[in-house]
């Protein structure tokens, strides 16, 4: 178990493609950090640099007290769970679990003990002698996890480990990974493009975009207080409604007087828009209903307001019974508004 310290790290691929730009991040001992972002944001590259599978162009990465830039993957004492599991197809499950220990010259008795422990924890004892191809997706996933935990490494690295599973199994394994990580207390870095997975798993959430970190924080903090337009739109499903402030002014919306002057865009979460007039200060937009998506427990209402380009989405609990063309009054409490600067897209604090 160890801290991971990433300081000023960059990655430039041949042809001057900059995948990671001067990135710094510290990961505390025992923490589960989730790197989330759209594809191509550099999150997998960063993980592979920690693992030693990609060279580091600039900056340093240290695991524990050691700078690992020049170390081979094997010498970094980390374990990785791959998206396609990367189980050795010609070895039995037991062979897969033992491989890393044998390579390190672990004693036979110790190997047997660790494999037995891991198999018990992951409930894969019944198929220790089977080949990976005889296992289901979920079972393979467990074996891949097993291969990581028998090694008792300083850190676990997860590279989108759940994206090959069906939705139900994914939700189940998500909970298990969380439970397992808590129980073992091993520092973990987890890469995903699924923001739901990121929200539910993370101790610390790192939102990445274009090779840089957009925001780091506790999942709920990132959700409720996004520091940039990108984070606002990326986190949440659907993401935050982002409306150009000029178009709001043009339709005479009752913006709060405290709104910072630098604001170019205001944002509001779909669940913060209400249809009944709230008590506190608020602004109101007249809109016509475009479409309703019934999810079951809640409804997503798409409404089109005159003078505002994009549909405004609001989330109402239960089933919203309305028809396209209905006229709605969308009420947005002033307290639910987020302001983002015109040029940079960064959050601007209320004056």
């Amino acid at each position, binding site marked *: 178990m160890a801290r991971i310290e990433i300081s000023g790290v960059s990655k430039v691929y041949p042809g001057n493609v900059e995948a990671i730009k001067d990135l710094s991040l510290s990961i505390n001992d025992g923490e589960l950090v989730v790197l989330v972002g759209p594809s191509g944001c550099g999150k997998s590259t960063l993980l592979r640099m920690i*693992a*030693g*599978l990609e060279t580091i162009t600039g900056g340093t990465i240290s695991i524990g007290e050691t700078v690992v830039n020049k170390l*081979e*993957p*094997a010498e970094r004492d*980390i*374990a*990785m769970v*791959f*998206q*396609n599991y*990367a189980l*050795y*197809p*010609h070895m039995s499950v037991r062979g897969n679990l033992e*491989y*890393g220990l044998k*390579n*390190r010259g672990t004693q036979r008795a110790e190997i047997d003990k660790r494999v037995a422990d891991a198999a018990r924890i992951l409930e894969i004892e019944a198929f220790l002698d089977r*080949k990976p191809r005889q296992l289901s997706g979920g079972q393979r996933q467990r074996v891949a996890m097993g*291969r990581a935990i028998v*090694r008792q490494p300083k850190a676990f690295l997860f590279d989108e480990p759940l994206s090959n599973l069906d939705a139900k199994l994914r939700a189940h394994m998500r909970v298990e990974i969380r439970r397992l990580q808590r129980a073992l207390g091993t520092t973990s870095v987890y890469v995903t493009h699924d923001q739901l997975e990121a929200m539910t798993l993370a101790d610390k959430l790192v939102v990445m975009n274009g090779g840089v970190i957009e925001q780091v924080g506790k999942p709920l903090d990132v959700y409720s207080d996004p520091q940039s337009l990108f984070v606002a739109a990326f986190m949440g499903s659907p993401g935050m409604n982002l409306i150009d402030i000029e178009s709001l002014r043009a339709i005479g919306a009752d913006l709060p007087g405290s709104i910072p002057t630098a604001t170019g865009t205001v944002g509001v979460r779909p669940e913060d828009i209400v249809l009944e007039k709230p008590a506190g200060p608020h602004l109101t937009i007249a809109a016509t209903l475009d479409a309703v998506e019934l999810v079951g427990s809640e409804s997503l209402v798409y409404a089109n307001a005159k003078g505002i380009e994009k549909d405004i989405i609001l989330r109402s609990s239960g089933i919203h019974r309305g028809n396209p063309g209905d006229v709605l009054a969308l009420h947005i409490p002033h307290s639910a508004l987020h302001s983002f600067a015109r040029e940079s897209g960064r959050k601007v604090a209320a004056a």
Partner: protein
Amino acid sequence: MQTKRTIFSNKGLPYLLLAPQLAITIVFFIWPAAQAVKSSFEREDPFGLRTSFVWFQNYTRLFTDPNYLNSFGRTLIFAVSVTFLAMAIALLLAAAVNRLIRSSNVYTTLLVWPYAVAPVVAGILWWFMFNPSIGILPYALGQFGITWNHRTSGTDAMILVIIAATWKQISYNFLFFLAGMQSIPNSLTEAAAIDGAGPFKRFWTIVFPLLSPTTFFLMIININYAMFDTFGIIDGTTSGGPNQATNILVYKVYDDGFLGLNIGSSAAQSVILMLIVIALVFVQFRFIERRVQY
């Protein structure tokens, strides 16, 4: 598996459509093979005027003929050496090219060239390079005090044909090994690297076992090649000599039949070769799918 099924309204049509293929097979393969089987039981006088049926005499004579048994031994040495060397060198080259990222296509193209060279040309090429009077290699070897003369030394002659035959087969093996390696996901070797295996250990414990279907397939193909497709190379370099040292089975068939005009014995030899091919192909189809699997 789903099979495509076409219903013909006219019963004769399917046979008519198959006829060209069947005709070619019968005229060019079945008939000569049958002729060979027939001739192998016969004995012809030197002028081809009288033919008598001699049962298995041609076969029994072969297996008591020291020349034939010697040829069997030579073939074994030749086939095992060529198969082993061609596969080992190809595996090494494939492993090397597989590590390259940008220039791998160039190397692949260059390494495949020998395959396009006709066997006789390949033979003559090596014969020329190793020519004791004008070749560059005997000259170079001479500088180190090694005398090379494949015209008098049976060992030298065997080494020469092994080199020529191996050189020509490396390309084929290389392509298959490279394709096999490229179909192994990168994440497997990465996982092994994290699991503490060095490059050599990764190769022998992960990559090589996963290549075993390819290896087995190539082994059969290479034995087949060395035993039957190397006629041109032998003919272009040593013509079976000196003193029978490189007279492998397939060359002996030609030597005895076309040069020695002993048709009966030659036919019996080719029937034995045919049985060996059938056995190899049987092994290939029977075991390749089932045994070598992970």
